[in-house]
């Protein structure tokens, strides 16, 4: 009896142990699968597994201060390229980014860890004061930035942000083409992710939360 009982209890223990291990293993698989699913590019965001460090550039902000690589450090930056004479895509995107900012600001420390930067590709019409007035309307914390064509091209090129300003002499409303994507640069000034249009402020804030959790997970 005693022997059977011992055998029986060893057997039960073994089965229980196996079940526990299987459970742990399955949970790990699910966890990995989950985070992998979050890493997959979707319709809202593409996250880069290996964020690309940005290199020096020199632009000017709407207060006529230098806006360079250092300005991207220490915060998560949402960058959007556009121009103020843009009736459809730019106001729509900035309104959604303002919503995203409101959502992010609801979380503890959220407001302090992000900045939103509107980069005008049309410096001949978008002066510093005009940019300030423009971004202010959407969100007083937004920063308007522009510069000379070479430096706009420098930063845009690093992010793969396409644009084309078709300045035509004598034409007041010359066409401007620009990517409608929003670029996410991490606090180490690395190109971390890109948000694809059509933009939705709430979706952007939710994806940003996932990005932060993943980064925090990697750090620990």
């Amino acid at each position, binding site marked *: 009896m005693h022997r059977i009982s011992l055998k029986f209890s060893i057997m039960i223990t073994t089965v229980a142990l196996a079940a526990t291990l299987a459970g742990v293993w399955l949970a790990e698989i699910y966890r990995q699968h989950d985070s992998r699913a979050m890493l997959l590019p979707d319709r809202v965001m593409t996250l880069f597994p290996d964020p690309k460090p940005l290199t020096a550039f020199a632009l000017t902000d709407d207060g006529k201060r230098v806006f360079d690589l250092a300005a991207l450090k220490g915060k998560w930056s949402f960058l959007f390229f556009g121009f*103020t*004479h843009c009736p*459809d895509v730019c*106001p729509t995107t900035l*309104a959604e980014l303002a919503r995203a900012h409101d959502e992010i600001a609801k979380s503890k420390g959220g407001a302090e860890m992000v900045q939103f930067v509107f980069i005008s590709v049309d410096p001949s019409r978008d002066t510093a004061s005009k940019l300030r007035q423009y971004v202010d*309307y959407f969100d007083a914390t937004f920063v308007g930035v522009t510069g000379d064509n070479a430096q706009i091209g420098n930063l845009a090129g690093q992010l793969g942000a396409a644009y084309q300003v078709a300045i035509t002499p004598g034409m007041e409303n010359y066409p*401007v*083409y*620009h990517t409608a994507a929003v670029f996410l640069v991490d606090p180490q000034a690395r190109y971390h992710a890109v948000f694809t*249009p059509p933009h939705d402020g709430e979706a952007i804030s939710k994806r940003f939360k996932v990005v932060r959790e993943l980064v925090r997970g990697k750090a620990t």
Partner: protein
Amino acid sequence: MRWQVPVFVCLASVLSVVPAASKDTGVSVRDAWIRETPPGMAMMAGYMELRNNTSRPQVLVAASSAEFGSVMIHRTIAKDGMAGMVHQPQIELAPNGSLVFAPGGYHLMLMTPKRALRAGDPVVINLEFRGGLVLPVAFEVRK
């Protein structure tokens, strides 16, 4: 949003005002709005949903408004990974079909507003269709 009751004004005659339900000439518009822009901006965009209540195509050929220097029918398009706008000389509404003017797609480009338009302001824009039909539509400025 309920369908607005559009009023059809004949270009040639003056007095005949036909209600929207008219099956022969009916194009109706709903959810017509203009995005409020930062002060001093010379460009705004208007959006709406158009419905052709007839069994033949209706062609939108122009738009105008006393509130703006000019109004153009535009479409935001993707070109080599960039967004840009192209002028649409005309847009055909399929028989009994509808067409949405929405952010990132078709829109009325409203240039040089004659006064500062703020959320809640009503603005009338006239939509002109081939054959002479002019449809005055009340747009609401929204933030």
